[in-house]
């Protein structure tokens, strides 16, 4: 589907914080993915209209970034790291356990649409090897038993983890009266006022 009215309003706000609308492309694609769980063609077309990019440019850009999905994935995306530090502590074995116990190939989604298992590159928790993320939230030093318990908890929706697509649950918001003001670069050719202090003697 296209963007919801609430997301249209959010999109307009996000665009207003960047000197050029195109800079809002990736944040808006995240918004669309949060709405639908993946990127639909309709949402991408709308995002393109909003930031001044063709559908091909939007898809071409989105396709560069691994987190954007063009087809539905599981409610919970499980990314198991197998990079060097995790490899040393059994990351590959954990990935195989994850896929096998859920009955999917690596990269696949369970029939009930609940889980997708992916092999991840270093997710910056190297001392907590082997580690994984569920919808980009960390779990470290995971044994196969830990993994099975995690899956049970997720199946029962017992954990405080939003569904795939939602990243930060806190949105930046800038009160209008606090905004310093964002303008395109060609309208900001003057040195900012405070920099002029370099040219004056400081009193005292």
């Amino acid at each position, binding site marked *: 589907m296209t963007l919801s009215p609430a997301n249209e309003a959010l999109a307009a706000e996000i665009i207003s914080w960047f000197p050029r609308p195109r800079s809002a492309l990736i944040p808006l694609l995240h918004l669309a993915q949060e709405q639908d769980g993946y990127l639909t063609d309709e949402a991408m077309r709308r995002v393109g209209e909003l930031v001044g990019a063709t559908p091909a440019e939007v898809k071409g850009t989105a396709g560069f970034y*691994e987190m954007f999905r063009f087809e539905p994935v599981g409610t919970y995306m499980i990314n198991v790291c197998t990079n060097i530090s995790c490899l040393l502590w*059994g990351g590959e074995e954990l990935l195989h356990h994850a896929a096998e116990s859920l009955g999917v190939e690596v990269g696949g989604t369970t029939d009930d649409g609940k889980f997708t298992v992916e092999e991840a590159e*270093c997710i*910056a928790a190297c001392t*907590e090897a082997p580690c994984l993320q569920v919808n*980009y939230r960390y779990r470290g030093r995971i044994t196969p038993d830990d993994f099975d318990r995690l899956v049970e908890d997720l199946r029962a929706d017992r954990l405080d983890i939003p569904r795939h697509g939602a990243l930060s649950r806190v949105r930046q918001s800038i009160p209008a009266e606090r905004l310093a003001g964002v303008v395109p670069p060609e309208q900001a050719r003057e040195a900012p006022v405070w920099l002029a202090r370099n040219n004056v003697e*400081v009193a005292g």
Partner: protein
Amino acid sequence: MDPQVAVNGYIAHAPGYVHNDGPKLITSRFVHDDSFTLARYEATGGYEGLRAALETTPAAVHDEVRAATLLGRGGAGFPAGVKWGFLPPGKHPYYLVVNGDESEPGTYKDRLLMERDPHQLIEGCLIACYALGLQQCFLYVRGEMAVAQERIAAALNEAYEAGYVGRDICGTDFSVDIVMAWGAGAYIVGEETALIESLEGRRGMPRLKPPYFPAAVGLYGQPTIVNNVETLANLPWMMVNGAEAYCRYGSESSPGTRMFAVSGHLRRPGVYEVEHGVTTFRELIYGDNFCQGIRDGHELKMFIPGGGSAPWFFPEHLDLPLEARPVGAAGSMLGSGAIVIMDDTTDAVRAAWRVVKFFARESCGKCTPCREGTTWLEQILRRILDGEGRPSDIDLLLDIGDNISPGPYPVAAHNGQEAVPFPPRQTTICPLGPSAVAPVVSTIRRFRHEYESKITRRDAIPIEVVPVGASQ
């Protein structure tokens, strides 16, 4: 600190971080479970660095940073004060882009700084903007770091509300907006020109050089400073205490402290704040105050001194200090402060293959030697591991490496060859391609017999399968 929150130095609310009794310039608040809130930040000296900066001139703030020789913490180790000086006068607007796209294998410090102390980073951004007349700041957080995004968004909301960010900051004429942006999964975006492309809403592919520094041509073609999270996080302390006090820590050429993530086969792997330049690898790996040695019953075989891109080191390098110059002279780099320790159970070929696989997957595809070369390196290593290697494969690996990174490869003096400082020459526009060559050449030079036995005997040296999640 409260002893109840620390078990063997680990803190429950900051997994991986080890609180020891060394100096704490940038991780001092990590022991508090609410360290990311404005209330805690203000109660522990928060935004005093900004106030100190606002009481002096922008040029004086820049001078202070220059005097402190604040080395960039992202990987290249370039002095921030010098980088700042590359801004061409009068070509406004200037922008600040914060590189929080931490994804170098083995590295994590920026994530902790963003999750545990976002206000410290925001204050650092403000000080930089004030010093240089930067008109807007974009704080780019790695896409996969949802919690860091939450903490930064919440902190920015608090800081705007409290008058620290936005219009007329702290009641002065200093006004700057800080906007959080976030990525979507691409290692290469950590390269500063690729980061700018991503921030312009495009595929994150590095820009052709020259110009070498975005300070000349950056975001929207305007002069832009790109600084790493940890670099900026040093500024509040520096403004409160002064460059002179800052230089009392660390060595003369590398003052202050630095965060190192030390992972792998260790008794106490962790992220440590370490005095820069004076501590040695040996102290960090074996010292009681740090990692406490290799896991029981095993010995060090090799280690990566500066993240996945760095050429590997061996036991004879342990007494080098954690300082850019001697590490560079020995043929590697300190890079992003990520040290990966491998003990005698580690299969050198398999370890090298995994790092190469990473670079093959993350190559953006812009330069042919990297796009094709990293893929071939990965496939050849894979077939050697699978027992299908060919006698010519070792030379083939070196030849492909030479096409990405021509000339004598940086090797340490232990091989009886002249040490060549990192970085190597490259046929690519960014260092990703040469990074894939590092583990291959490092391991072939040192453990050629491991390659040969896999190729000639067509069977792998038995790999000890580590029990998953075995106690560390």
